[in-house]
Structure formats: structure tokens, C-alpha cells
């Protein structure tokens, strides 16, 4: 811990957020998580012939926040996009290996990317509210696309309210639900996108550098939100910001040039990295 505190500008924040739960996090984590949520085995992803990630095998535990860190271009986002089968939406892309979510293999014959994505919410770097929809319809957007939720159509308002509450946005927007989502600030838009992802009650939420385009205050709100999400959902967050990983995650994976170097409880990874490359990265020697 000392090592990383000395070099990181955000060091003063870390003890405040991390310290109270460091003990519980460590207690929960053993060498192998007891309740795995996402298991990737020998996962590789390609753009054309160039691999973006190579042979990644990892286990992400249920109801915890797992952060993926690494220098830009190391394949963090690609790894994330393999978990909800978004990687294949790009031209000339290919995925090898297998990903299992809660016991279901999501690649393979007869599986549907659309069905997988309904269980796995995703939030992107930049807020992506649908510009033609109101705040309310944005949050309900995922429900409308889901055949399972036809029955739930009657209490859409209830679901919308609940999702906005969880995203910490309800108080700010409750009087303007019918206004265009584009009238919100950037930080509000991003929380709207989180609410939209939560409304369908996914089992996993993927966050791809969700605070990259936000101001510090909005960033703090989103981080607090992520911290609370673990109660109900498995979270995987990609971040280029080590302090953020330290603040919000239970476990951290370090990726370098497409390879998974190390995956360990966050505390352990930042204080006593096993691999010299991890140590080099977190002490700021490259990246």
C-alpha cells in the first residue's frame, strides 16, 4: 500500500474510501472466489488477424466489483466487450475461447448475442442517451426490447423510478421525466445511462471507463454509485485510472498487451503485486 500511496496523486483519497472496507473485502476474497459469475477460458479476440486480447482465463466473482486496468491499447475494452458479445459488432472481428456467465456458455451454437446482452448491462465512455427519447423512455428503453418483460409493462413507471433512484438521479429529474434526455448535463446523462442499464435488472454490469468524460464531481457520484451496485449485481469496470480502481473495486485485473498478467484482490494487487510488470505499472514506471 505504501508504495502506491507515495507515487499516486490521488493517494489522499484512497485511505478514506478503501480503508473501511479493505478488511471485509479481504475476508470475502480467497484464492478462488466461491461464487463465480463470469468465467473466461482461453479467450482471445481479434481485429482482422491482429489479436487484441490473447488467451485470457479469469474468474469474476458474483456481487463484487472487478476492475480491469492497464496501459491504453492493452485490450481492456476489448476484454469487456467480449463479455456481452459487443466485440463481434465491429467489422472483421473474431472471438476464440469461451465465456460463461452464471453457468451459461454465451458463445456457441444457438446462443444469441441479443439474449446475452439483456442479462449484461453496459455503460460506455461517453454518455449515450437516445436523443429522440425523453428521460423516461430512455430508462424504459431496455424494457421495451425485452420479450420477457411484456408482463412488466404495466408498472414501467415504477421500474423507471426505481432505476433512477438506484442511479441517484431521481431527485434531479423527477419533475422533468418527459423532457428530452439531451437537456441533462454530461454527468446526469451518464447516470441516466446507468439507470437505463439497471432497469432491465441485468446480472452483470460492464462499465467502460464510465467517468472518462466527466468532471470530478460527477465522477465522484458515479464512483459512489458503482460502490453501491455490488450489493445486487456483478460489476466489471475498465479504467485507466488506478486510483479509481483502488477506490471502487474488490478485485483488480492487470492487462498488458492483450495478456492477463495478474488478477487479485485490489488491496493485494496494489500493495504486494506478484508480477514485476504489475509492480512496474502501478508504480508508474510505464503506461
Amino acid at each position, binding site marked *: 500500500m505504501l508504495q502506491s500511496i507515495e507515487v499516486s496523486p490521488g493517494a489522499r483519497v484512497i485511505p478514506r474510501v478503501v480503508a473501511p472496507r479493505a478488511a471485509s473485502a479481504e475476508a470475502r476474497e480467497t484464492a478462488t472466489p466461491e461464487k463465480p459469475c463470469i468465467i473466461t477460458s482461453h479467450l482471445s479476440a481479434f481485429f482482422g488477424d491482429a489479436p487484441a486480447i490473447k488467451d485470457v482465463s479469469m474468474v469474476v466473482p458474483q456481487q463484487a466489483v472487478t476492475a480491469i486496468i492497464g496501459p491504453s491499447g492493452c485490450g481492456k475494452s476489448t476484454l469487456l466487450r467480449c463479455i456481452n458479445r459487443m466485440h463481434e459488432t465491429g467489422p472483421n472481428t473474431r472471438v476464440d475461447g469461451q465465456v460463461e456467465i452464471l453457468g451459461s456458455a454465451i458463445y456457441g451454437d444457438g446462443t444469441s448475442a441479443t439474449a446475452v446482452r439483456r442479462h449484461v448491462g453496459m455503460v460506455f465512455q461517453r454518455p449515450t442517451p*437516445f436523443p429522440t427519447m425523453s428521460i423516461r423512455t430512455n430508462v424504459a428503453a431496455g424494457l421495451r426490447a425485452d420479450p420477457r418483460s411484456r408482463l412488466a409493462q404495466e408498472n414501467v413507471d415504477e421500474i423507471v423510478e426505481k432505476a433512477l433512484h438506484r442511479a441517484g438521479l431521481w431527485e434531479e429529474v423527477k419533475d422533468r421525466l418527459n423532457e428530452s434526455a439531451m437537456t441533462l448535463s454530461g454527468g446526469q446523462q451518464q447516470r441516466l445511462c446507468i439507470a437505463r442499464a439497471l432497469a432491465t435488472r441485468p446480472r452483470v454490469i460492464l462499465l467502460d471507463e464510465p467517468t472518462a468524460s466527466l468532471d470530478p464531481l460527477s465522477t465522484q457520484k458515479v464512483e459512489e454509485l458503482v460502490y453501491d451496485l455490488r450489493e445486487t449485481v456483478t460489476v466489471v469496470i475498465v479504467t485507466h485510472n488506478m486510483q479509481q480502481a483502488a477506490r471502487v473495486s474488490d478485485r483488480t485485473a492487470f492487462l498488458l498487451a492483450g495478456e492477463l498478467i495478474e488478477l487479485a484482490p485490489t488491496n493485494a494487487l496494489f500493495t504486494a503485486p506478484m508480477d514485476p510488470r504489475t509492480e512496474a505499472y502501478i508504480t508508474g514506471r510505464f503506461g
Partner: protein
Amino acid sequence: MKTRLARHWISGSMIGLTYLAAVLATLPLLLILAHLIRKGAASLSLSFFTHMPGPVGETGGGMANAIVGTLILISIACAIGLPIGIGAGIYLSEKRSMPLAQSVRFLSDVLNGLPSIVMGIFAWTLLVRPVGHFSALAGGGALGAMMIPLVTRTTEEMLRVVPTSLREAALALGYPRWRTSLSVVVRTALAGIATGALVAVARIAGETAPLLFTALGNQFWSTSLREPIAALPLQIFAYAISAYDEWHAQAWAGALVLISIVLVISLAARVVTRSKFGAPVD
């Protein structure tokens, strides 16, 4: 070696020439509009819109049948051209780099440059010759075929402007591809697509050549799709090349109405573009 002064003098006069070009290029439109208004307004009255064409040598009369005919022809053309054009435009934007997309894109451009008279004889061989008579359907078909490449290209262009991030957001939310395309991508670009559709309508509304051997024209009232039908541009043409002053006057009035329709649609297209990404629907 030219002197500095000579070089600056040349520069100044060439720039002056571009100003002159700007004046000369805008002059024809202003002249045409001025003549249309002066000559057309003289014989334009309410009865022009409500009455049938009068016999030779009689002043007055109207083009009610031709105005209605043009509206019917435009409707048929839209019924054919809009769905196919928009569908093809969606295909081009979804499958951007597929070989088929490349050739469809190229052939749309080629089709856009096809002389309208060629489209007319094509529609004749396909829709008139086999059934043995001219019809509104054949005229509308020819115009609809002209609309397809126009709408295809503008639709693709408008869809291309929609950020990929929106597509991805919808897909990640569990939207199937068709739904992502329709209720997010197309919906977001709807104003632009509508603009493209209006521009295409404005373009075909004044077309005459494709109607010569398809819709043919009709001096009488007819709204039947299987009969020859009157159209404003055809009527203007017939009256313009006739030998009677009364008919010439009617032609000017018809041209004023036609260009007003075209300009109103073109202006509407501009207004729609401006309200792009407007208020939410609900």
C-alpha cells in the same frame, strides 16, 4: 518576369471576374422567376384550380385535372420510391463495406444520372406495351423508379451521421439489430431522411419526359390509375408548344403553380433539416 504591379492587377481583375460570374449565375433564376410571376399571375385565379381546361379560343378555364393528376402521380411514386429507397439506404448504412453495398452505391449514382427520357421509355416497355394502353400507374411507376436512387443515397448519408455510439448503446441494451436500426438509428435520422424524401419529391414533381409515353396526359377529368392521366408538367408542355395565345397564358399560370409547388417543398425540406434532433416524441 511580370512586375509586381502587373501581378496584382491580374489578381484583382480575376477576382473581379468571379464576382461577375456570381452575378451572371444568379441572373437566370431571377429572370425566370420574374417572368413567371409577371406572366403567370395574370392568368392565375381561383378558377385555375377548380376548373377544367377550356376549349381553344376561350380565355379562362383551369387545370384542376392536371393538378389532381400530378398529386396522384406523386403519391404513386412515393408509394414505390420511398419504402424501397429508404430500405436500400438502410442496407447501405448497415453493410457499409460489403461488396454488394459498394456496387449498389455506385449504381444508384449511375441511375441518378440516367436521362429521364430513358426512364420513360423503360417504363413504357415494361408497363405500357404489355397492357396496351397508357396509364397513371405507368407514369407513377416511372417517377417512382427515379425516386429510388435519390432516396437511397440521401437516406444513407443521413444514417451515416448518426453516431456509432448510439447503435452500440442500443445493441448493448439487448436490442436486436433490426430494432436498433429502426427505433434508434433511423429514428434519430428521421428528420434528415424526411428532408431527403422531400427533395426527391420536389425533383420528380416537375418531371415531364418520363410521363410522355406513360401517363400521356388527359384533357378530361380522370383519377383512374388504369387510364391516362393529366399532369401539370405535361399540360404546360402541350400548351407551351401550341399555337394559341390563350393556351400560352395558361401555360405560364401552370408553370407558376408548378414552380411554387416545387419551391414550397424545397423550402419545407430546409425547415425540416433545421429542426433536426428536435424534441422527444412523447
